[in-house]
């Protein structure tokens, strides 16, 4: 079945036909105006501002309202050009010299013009010139930098990426000042024309990885990229796996740390979520806090996370298997109270568990989407429905409520939402297996998951590394977080080109010894 699924679909045709866009600009200003107006027909936010340079030469300024800095246009462009100090008719280059701006580019075609106008750069066109000037005056309202809600930390920087690509790049650059931080720019989306940046560190990241990322991105032909999730699904290795194969983060420190491990960061304009590739299963269990807190505490918490990951996947199934197949496995006192508590429940353990887990998932989803004021009400109702009322009505046993509660808490211990929700969904088929075949089914489910994880790759890197394949050196940052003076080497599969991160033997010791 899965072999059929693997075949890649045939390439689709480009969606839009370009007519006169690639033509060069005309020397007649009126004709240019006419063509631009025909392209931007029906776009009421485009402003055409004709004016005379020094009262002699006809010129035209085109920009989109709200994308450009109008104050700057007035003071830095229009004011000097329209002043009477210029006494002769001047060409484009001389005009540009008179404009008090640092960022001026020459445009030659209508296509260039459109790109610049759409990006917020006003276009200056002049009579008798077959070139125009794009003025770097893009400015629009943007969100201020805030701590990301989905990845808050106790200790660590409180800044998160924003929707503006330029700001995000600057945040990365502020963390990694070395000129070795390189970026490749691409534009994807025939309508949205979204800027996408592939960031990597030269000398750490593997060149073949960068090529592969670039290759996969170049194959993408889509009308728009509104969020990095669009890209993620179009470039991942196994499209039918529930497990995320790219890490998404809102935090510049996480992105920088991954860059320094030799990974590649993909930034998409218009979203604060950047993508990191390649990643392994354990990347999703590494919270940014782990590296900022003391290593002992981080290690214990990380082991706890992995333990609760197992709980979140297997606890309901274990309950189902034990209470309908393996009653002899539980301590006698517990099985007697379980029998008492389950006495009035009309369903089998499997149905009971599935109902409760689905209700819990529904509550979680409902609480997520609702406005904050209503969300509180939903959680109160949910707590009552799941807890007290369902038990009193004899629908479920109190023990099942405890199981669901522990499972819920456990699944929220996974720091990455994308991985947490994948594991949450996996527990339903495993519950089915446990309800039909008992612990044997549970074991089968576990084996199936492990086989799937072993097969999974993220940009060629095995998903279960450093366990499978076993890379002993990388274990230092998988189950535990070793102290910084032991983290001498980068992850083998991504950073082996530039193996050492720091000087060896940095364990602090008393001076006079």
């Amino acid at each position: 079945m899965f072999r059929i699924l693997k075949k890649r679909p045939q390439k689709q045709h480009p969606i839009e036909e370009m007519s006169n866009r690639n033509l060069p600009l005309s020397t007649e200003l009126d004709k240019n105006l006419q063509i631009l107006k025909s392209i931007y027909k029906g776009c009421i936010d485009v402003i055409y501002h004709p004016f005379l340079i020094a009262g002699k030469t006809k010129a035209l300024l085109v920009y989109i309202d709200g994308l450009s800095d109008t104050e700057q246009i007035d003071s830095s462009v229009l004011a000097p050009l329209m002043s009477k100090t210029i006494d002769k008719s001047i060409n484009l280059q001389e005009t540009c010299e008179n404009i008090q701006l640092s960022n001026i580019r020459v445009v030659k075609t209508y296509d260039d013009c459109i790109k610049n106008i759409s990006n917020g750069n006003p276009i200056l066109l002049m009579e008798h010139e077959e070139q125009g000037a794009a003025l770097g005056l893009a400015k629009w309202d943007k969100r201020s930098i805030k701590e990301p809600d989905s990845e808050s930390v106790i200790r660590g920087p409180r800044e998160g990426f924003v929707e503006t690509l330029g700001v995000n790049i600057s945040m990365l650059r502020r963390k990694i000042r070395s000129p070795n931080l390189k970026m490749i720019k691409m534009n994807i989306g025939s309508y949205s024309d979204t800027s996408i940046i592939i960031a990597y560190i030269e000398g750490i990241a593997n060149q073949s990885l960068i090529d592969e990322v670039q290759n996969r991105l170049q194959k993408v032909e889509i009308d728009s990229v509104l969020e990095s999730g669009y890209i993620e699904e179009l470039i991942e290795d196994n499209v039918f796996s529930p497990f995320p194969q790219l890490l998404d983060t809102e935090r510049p420190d996480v992105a920088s740390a991954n860059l320094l491990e030799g990974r590649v960061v993909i930034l998409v304009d218009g979203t604060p979520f950047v993508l990191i590739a390649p990643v392994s299963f354990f990347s999703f269990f590494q919270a940014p806090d782990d590296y900022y807190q003391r290593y002992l505490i981080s290690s214990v918490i990380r082991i706890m996370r992995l333990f609760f990951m197992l709980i979140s996947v297997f606890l309901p199934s274990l309950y189902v298997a034990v209470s309908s197949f393996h009653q002899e496995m539980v301590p006698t006192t517990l099985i007697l109270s379980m029998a008492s508590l389950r006495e009035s429940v009309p369903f089998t353990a499997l149905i009971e568990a599935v109902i409760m887990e689905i209700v819990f998932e529904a509550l979680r989803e409902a609480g997520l989407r609702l406005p904050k004021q209503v969300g509180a009400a939903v959680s109160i109702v949910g707590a009552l429905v799941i807890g007290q009322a369902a038990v009193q009505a004899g629908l479920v046993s109190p023990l099942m409520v405890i199981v669901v509660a522990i499972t819920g808490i456990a699944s929220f211990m996974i720091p990455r939402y994308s991985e947490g929700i994948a594991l949450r969904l996996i527990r339903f088929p495993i519950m089915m297996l446990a309800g039909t075949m008992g612990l044997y089914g549970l074991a089968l489910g576990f084996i199936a998951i492990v086989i799937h994880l072993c097969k999974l790759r993220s940009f060629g890197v095995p998903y279960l590394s450093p366990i499978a394949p076993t890379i002993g050196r990388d274990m230092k940052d998988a189950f535990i977080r070793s102290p910084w003076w032991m983290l001498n080497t980068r992850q083998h599969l991504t950073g082996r080109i530039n193996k050492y991160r720091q000087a060896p033997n940095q364990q602090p010791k008393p001076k006079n010894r």
Partner: protein
Amino acid sequence: MKLTEIKRKGIERMNDTLFRIMKAILSFFLVLSQCVLLTGCWDNKELNQLAIIVGAAIDKDKNNKIKLTVQVFLPQSQSGGQQSSSGKAQVEIKSAVGTNLADAASNLQREYSRKLFWGHCKTYIFGRSLSEKGNLGRQIDFIDRHPEPREDSHLYVSDGKASDILQLSASLEKYVGDVLRKMSEMHVGANMTLKDFELMVTSEGGGALLPLIKIKHPNNDDRKMNVSPIIGGTAIFMRDKMIGRINEVESKGLLWVRNQNELPEITGYPKKGQTISLYLKRTKTNLVPKIENGKWSVTINISKEGMIVQNGSKINIMSKKNTKRVENYIEKDVSNSIEKALKQVKDGMKVDPFGFATAFHRKYPKEWEKVKDHWEVVLPDIYVETKVKVHVLEPGLSTTTLE
């Protein structure tokens, strides 16, 4: 030719991703739906379809039949949020007769709407008359062979009818079986699981033992007390036939020789009316068999260490010299109960639950082969020397006794 190729290409185009995904999703749900249909699996047994047995008693009945009495847990519904405040589990006692244990169990099943579940029955009590009849192994085979009963369940022999024990009310615990099991685990009397018993029966010599349960009736003085089961002594087995009983004091001696613990207090009697008690912390037994000039003998080396918990004598136990005296008194008490046990079991019953046979077999395998078949004749003639060494570790938390 060309037309078919065009047709094939058309079909290929139809087999597009969407089609494939739909196919995958469909087949996934088909497989999943099969799982739901399978829920009536042969070994699926919901918790509320079970009658959980928490204790069983096996007695001899008329006409060579077996009477099985079980204690079944009655789950109380907890719906409506009403918690039962009594905390005592409801147990119900029913019995049935059959030609053997399995037959009796299946007859018993006729009285229950739920499947009898043996997986949590950890106490099996055999009636004395059944045990003395012999061939107990044929009944134990059910516990061994049936997949549900546990190998680590405890076996007992009741002094009277076994079913009477189950009728008693349990104090502290929820049912009588649990009381007996916890007492055994605390080393009141012998602590014998099914596995231990089988090991003893199949060992060299074949002497075995099981704890003996008696019913303690309240005296006239304390009528308020409940009728309760106590572990009062030990039943001695030769292979799977019970051949005698010994009392608590002799049991203590027997268990010490076997390197098992009994209750940790020992009391010595320095003079008439005076007592001194030791709380044992460590105890060790070592059997040394010896054959000299065809004469068989065993030395029992027992060392015990403990602290004094009561000094009811005039001895000043703070001095080193007196400590020796105290140790002597206690040693006398220990060897006394061992002597008694040896006299009763070794000389009287001619059975060897002490483990002498195993010790000889290990050290003198060739000689053992010769006496193996008439061990019960050789056993009483074996000379047993008891060497007890008691060491008082500390005199307890006070220095002097009030006068």
